[in-house]
């Protein structure tokens, strides 16, 4: 199909897409709710994206504040560099996770949120300890600062690729005997399990649409970019909206838009308009770089590379293998949700998942973006790369950046590596074609 309208015009139209407008409004309202908490008397819970128990938090009328999302926002607004330096000046090591340092630096500099207003101090830290060791220290650091109630919910690691009854029982016990009573105490709201069920029902509805959207990348061309675009798509469900009507609406709109793009044979929407020709289909492992997010993305779409599946869009929940929040087993389902997030999956599970993505999404190969300061993702990625390459026979490549520390984003390096990778893919294709011809 030949597209005759100019990409810029489409971009403008797309900018007005219902889903995008909806998401913007949702985020603005959310940050206002947070900033207004001081006047409205709303209580605030800080928690993490992996293992985010938004439905439970809402049962206590608490507003969900996510330090990781704040760090991402700081990265996107190019403020994280200064924040990281501020934290390092205060004695934090240059070696550790830059999310933590961005958060700490941001607090030191007045704790100003993306809407330019001060973020509130949390009333409770709900440490959902899922898939990353840094979380534990991060919340100890926050507790030192805010001196508020800290609740620890431990998610056992899925080391053997299975969820054992001991794991679920442990989590449910923590929820019943520790997490819920403490949340009741902090919020003054009595726990109502039926309210939780209602939220969970809504979560599952939005999750169905999210999976549909992510799996739409099986189409050729893919109507979405499942990494750069995917980061926007996961925002509401990984953040403060899972279990709300807003999330249901957002994913419904998005699904409709994706359907329209599929019907029109269109590729993903990029900041420069729709991608015209899909040349490469990639699976990406690892978080993105946020300080140069646009520039990073551009290096892909300029070359006609679209990401058809990514592991990062599973950090706040892995839904594409069938898991949905189940209102009939409210506490168990929360436990299983936490257990299943990507970072809580063993390395062999990660390999299986990525190799399966390469096959299912008919990708040209795997690209790993290794984050300098994130051990949870980075340790073992070179083995992941080799194994996926071995199993799929498709080429893999490795680039290195950081999440929110601009010092570790070298555009020239990344671009070089990407270019050689695309050449490798071409060669492989050429080789395969020759093989067929011979």
């Amino acid at each position: 199909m030949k597209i005759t309208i100019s990409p810029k015009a489409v971009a403008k139209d797309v900018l007005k897409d219902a889903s995008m407008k909806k998401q913007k409004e949702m985020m603005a309202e959310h940050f206002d709710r947070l900033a207004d908490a001081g006047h409205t008397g709303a209580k605030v819970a800080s928690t993490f994206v992996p293992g985010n128990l938004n439905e439970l938090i809402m049962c206590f009328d608490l507003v969900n504040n996510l330090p990781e999302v704040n760090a991402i926002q700081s990265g996107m607004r190019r403020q994280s560099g200064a924040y990281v330096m501020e934290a390092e000046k205060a004695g934090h090591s240059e070696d550790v996770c830059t999310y933590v340092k961005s958060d700490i630096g941001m607090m030191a500099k007045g704790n100003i949120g993306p809407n330019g207003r001060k973020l509130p101090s949390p009333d409770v830290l709900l440490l959902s300890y899922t898939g990353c060791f840094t979380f534990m220290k991060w919340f100890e650091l926050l507790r030192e600062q805010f001196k508020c109630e800290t609740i620890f919910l431990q998610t056992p690691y899925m080391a053997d690729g299975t969820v054992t009854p001991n794991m679920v029982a442990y989590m449910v016990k923590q929820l019943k005997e520790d997490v819920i009573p403490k949340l009741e105490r902090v919020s003054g709201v009595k726990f109502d399990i039926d309210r939780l069920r209602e939220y969970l029902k809504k979560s599952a509805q939005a999750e169905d649409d999210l999976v549909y959207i992510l799996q739409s990348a099986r189409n050729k061309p893919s109507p979405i970019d499942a990494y750069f675009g995917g980061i926007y798509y996961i925002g509401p469900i990984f953040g403060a909206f899972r279990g709300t009507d807003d999330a249901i609406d957002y994913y419904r709109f998005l699904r409709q838009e994706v359907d329209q793009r599929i019907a029109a044979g269109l590729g993903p929407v990029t900041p420069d308009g729709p991608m015209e020709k899909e040349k490469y289909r990639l699976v990406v492992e690892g978080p993105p770089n946020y300080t140069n997010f646009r520039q990073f993305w551009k290096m892909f779409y300029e070359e006609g590379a679209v990401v058809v599946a990514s592991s990062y869009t599973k950090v706040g929940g892995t839904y594409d293998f069938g898991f949905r929040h189940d209102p009939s087993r409210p506490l168990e389902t929360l436990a299983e949700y936490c257990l299943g997030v990507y970072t809580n999956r063993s390395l062999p599970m990660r390999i299986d998942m990525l190799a399966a993505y390469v096959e299912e999404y008919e990708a040209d190969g795997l690209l790993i973006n290794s984050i300098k300061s994130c051990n949870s993702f980075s340790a073992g990625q070179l083995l992941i790369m080799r194994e996926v390459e071995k199993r799929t026979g498709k080429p893999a490549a490795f680039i290195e950046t950081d999440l929110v520390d601009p010092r570790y984003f070298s555009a020239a390096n990344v671009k070089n590596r990407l270019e050689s990778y695309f050449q490798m893919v071409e060669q492989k294709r050429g080789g395969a074609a020759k093989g067929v011809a011979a």
Partner: protein
Amino acid sequence: MSAPSTGDIVARCQDLYEDLDFTAARQWKEAKKGRKVIGFMPVYIPREIIHAAGMLPLGILGGGDQLEVIHGDAYYQSYICRIPRSTIELGVTGRLDFVDGMLFPSICDVIRNLSGMWKVMFPRVYSRYFDVPQTYEDEIGGTFYVGEMTELRRDLEEIGGRKITDKALRGSIDVYNKNRRLIRRLYEARAQRPWQMPAWEVYLVVRAGMVLPVEAHSEIIEQYIAAALAEDKPVRDNSRVVLSGLFCEQPPLNLIKSLELSGCYVVDDDLLLVTRWLIGDVPLDGDPIYNLAQAFLHHSESTAAKYEPDQEEKGRYLVRAVKRTGAEGVIFTSPSFCDPALLDRPMLQSVLKSAGIPFIAFKYAENSGQMQPIREQAGTFADSIKLWSAA
């Protein structure tokens, strides 16, 4: 036969330390048909269960500064600590080919991911990530931990082809209680007379317990304490320091020596914590697994790999260690890129600051060769401590 001197004992321990082929453990295994060896990494494993299975728990602590890492570097980016890559090197080069199982305790994301790598790279070897509770209520974390230990017990029963009885477990707890008591005695003796027991010697003596059967190790410690206290060594005008942050990747022996050469007496440290993780004796009566769980929950050491539920208690253990040992300062020395140690450090430092305890910090790698900067820093620190206390 006359009692061995510290020189003899330390020389034997140094041989064990330097032997990257683990000959002693191999010999133990070969001495009797059917014997099994279970490797484990830092920071803590209930070795009693392995011992009760009739197996040898073998501490795997990376390759130190003598191992040439050729393959391991291909598995790790430059911004990840050294211990996983040298451990992989040990595996890939066949140095661990006699090991029947590997345990990867919950300490950090690197070791956690290494547990999965081991499964992929050495699929025929039993490998298990050993999770521990980070919540300390008996009914919650305790129950979970009993479950984890029970699974480990079952796995080892399968590998060993025999039941691990409660009686055997109690017997093992007994020998480890004795070992822990001796190590504590050693640490206390060193804190009192650090000039008699140089830190590098104490390290080697304790480290021997990573490769020897516990009974033989206890004997060595007893001999060393007796020999060290019997020898007369000159007292130097050193400053007394506690070391913090060395609980996983091991510092080069030269680093420990350098600290003493630069004017510091090490009176406490967090090296090889597995040997004294549990504080006090684990009771011998009742359910042994339950007793081990109770000891873990309520009577165990603090370290960065563990969650501290009580803000008031955060870092206090370090202040207590300083008081208990009469130390004058703390040296934070941890491996580069070590998340737990480095993320914890600022919190510990602020506790020390409020307690008026001086400290310095630097990083190392297990294969660091250049000791001059460390010597200078530690020397300046030792001097300044003296100046402060004189003022």
